[in-house]
């Protein structure tokens, strides 16, 4: 009985440790992203650009993710399921919780008004899932990110974000 208790304590501590695993993707606004020192940056950012932050749901999601209030965010999202921005918000929540399969499902349902976010998340999540499945293909993801860059030639922040993504893909196979 004593050993079972010790085992359960170790299991609990491991779970606690795993839940504190650092996030891989950080949601950030255009204003903050424009001030980042990209030469030194190694973090993967998910940008909220244009009118993304005019959406109450996305703004609240951004604030709650920033303060790492995940359960509060989950509760909040359950109250806004009819909002057109429910899917991108839920996808961001799932990414923060490293639930990539669920995140991809929600990403696929994102409407055309958040197309850039949808396209970027779709590549990111497909990469994470293929890596987990051991089907890593660097060239494919480099090409996907290249296509996305070419689709938005005037978006300099996106180019910088994608340059970091390519480093991330290069080193995390």
């Amino acid at each position, binding site marked *: 009985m004593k050993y079972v208790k010790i085992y359960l304590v170790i299991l609990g501590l491991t779970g606690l440790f795993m839940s504190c695993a650092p996030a891989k993707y950080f949601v950030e606004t255009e204003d903050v992203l424009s001030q980042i020192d990209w030469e030194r940056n*190694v973090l993967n950012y998910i940008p909220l650009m244009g009118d993304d932050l005019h959406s109450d749901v996305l703004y609240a999601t951004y604030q709650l993710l920033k303060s790492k209030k995940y359960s509060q965010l989950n509760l909040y999202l359950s109250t806004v399921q009819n909002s057109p921005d429910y899917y991108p918000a839920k996808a961001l929540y799932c990414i923060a919780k490293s639930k990539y399969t669920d995140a991809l499902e929600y990403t696929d349902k994102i409407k055309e008004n958040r197309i850039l976010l949808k396209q970027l998340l779709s590549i990111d999540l497909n990469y994470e899932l293929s890596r987990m499945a051991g089907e890593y293909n*660097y*060239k494919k993801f480099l090409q996907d990110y290249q296509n996305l860059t070419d689709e938005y030639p*005037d978006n300099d922040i996106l180019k910088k974000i994608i340059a970091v993504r390519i*480093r991330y893909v*290069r*080193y995390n196979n």
Partner: protein
Amino acid sequence: MKYGRFTLVLTLSLFLISCSESKMLMKSLRENRVPVDYLHDSKIADCDRSDGIALTAFDGHAFDTDLSVTKINGEVFPFLFYNYIEKNFAVKLGQMSLDRDYSDFFKESFAIESGRTGCYSLVDEPAENDYTLEIVYDTCITVSKYHQNTTIIFLIFTYSIYSQEVGFPAQTDLSVHVTLRKGDEIILDNKYFINKTLPPIPSDNMNINKMRFDFVSNMAESLSLGTKECIEQIIDDINSGIRKN
């Protein structure tokens, strides 16, 4: 005489150990095949592409065939309860560590970038009015430093060993000679010197194999970005040369 032999044996042993250390590290680093590629982030130029350019000569043989490791220096502090061993190696990237031929990578990247920002069209065979381009690599080196240290602490009935390996920033030096001709007339005759230093990505991964993979990847990334810079400069100058002509 007795001490002479002892010194000789000790020196030979240290020499052999020193060589095997470099070889072991070299063998381990050579096991990694890393991608050489980069993101083309230039804006696609909207310009006249009626002029044709044929790449008639390309010599990229300045790049080494195999990755090599040479020991730079080392320090040993052998105390009674505390031992510290430090080794520093110079590592030079070679073709065999890349997942594709460097010359093919350069030519492909040059063609892609020409299609994006070049105010000309790349052709296979030059027509009478077309330009011819020769690209010769004088230098193509990517080097870095690799540091290993081991701390051994002896306690009364036990001991503790702590090892650490650190990769330093990769440095790429490229020196490329480019000649653009139209018939016999030389339009452009420039040398490009690129020096690209890229710090390794910070990692808290303690897995030695992963650390070594990241180290070689960092060198390949430095080479990729150095090549990118070089190609962009060459295309800029070709555009100016054609415009002036």
